[in-house]
């Protein structure tokens, strides 16, 4: 039981670390695309670790299953959103090269 809790703490802690990294990247990186890159990566890993940490704590199979689905959906969303935002940045640049 204690072992499980330690695992959860470690994984959630790792997740928090990646979220921290993502936020720092979002705030500190100099241009939009690198910020985007940092954010997507860190976000994904952070979310993944948190889900991983919470899985052993889930009270029933359905909840665990939902956790996994949430994680998959976040993966998909992050990948798509990352691409769309990157595309959008390119589009804005083309329209207004000064920006």
């Amino acid at each position, binding site marked *: 039981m204690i072992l499980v*809790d330690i695992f*959860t*703490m470690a994984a*959630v*802690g790792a*997740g*928090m670390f990646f*979220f*921290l990294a*993502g*936020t720092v990247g*979002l*705030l500190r990186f100099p241009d*939009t695309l690198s*910020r*985007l890159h940092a*954010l997507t990566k860190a*976000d994904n890993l*952070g*979310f993944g670790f*948190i*889900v991983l940490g*919470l899985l052993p*704590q*889930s*009270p*029933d199979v*359905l*909840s665990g299953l*939902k*956790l996994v*689905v*949430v*994680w998959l*959906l*976040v993966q*998909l*969303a*992050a990948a*798509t*959103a990352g691409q*769309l*935002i990157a*595309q*959008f*940045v390119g*589009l*804005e640049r083309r*329209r207004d090269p000064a*920006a």
Partner: protein
Amino acid sequence: MIDFLYGAAALLLLLTGLGLARMMWGPAPADRMMAAQLLGTGGGAIALLIATASGITAIIDIALVLALLAAFAAVALTLGEPGTKQPDGQANP
């Protein structure tokens, strides 16, 4: 354990909250949208942490919906923009 999870949720809220600074600074709409994106995933994670901590499994459903719609705003951002070809084929001034 429960305190740890609540604490993690609070910390995560703070982190994503810091991301709001990017929403305000911008400068590009994409930057602002990223902050919203971070909040979508961060919010989902917070919901999961609270769900586990409180034992109210229904809160997972909120994370489910947030994750499902996480890409929505980003998709909507790329909807027909002024200055480009509009869906109906008429160029806007």
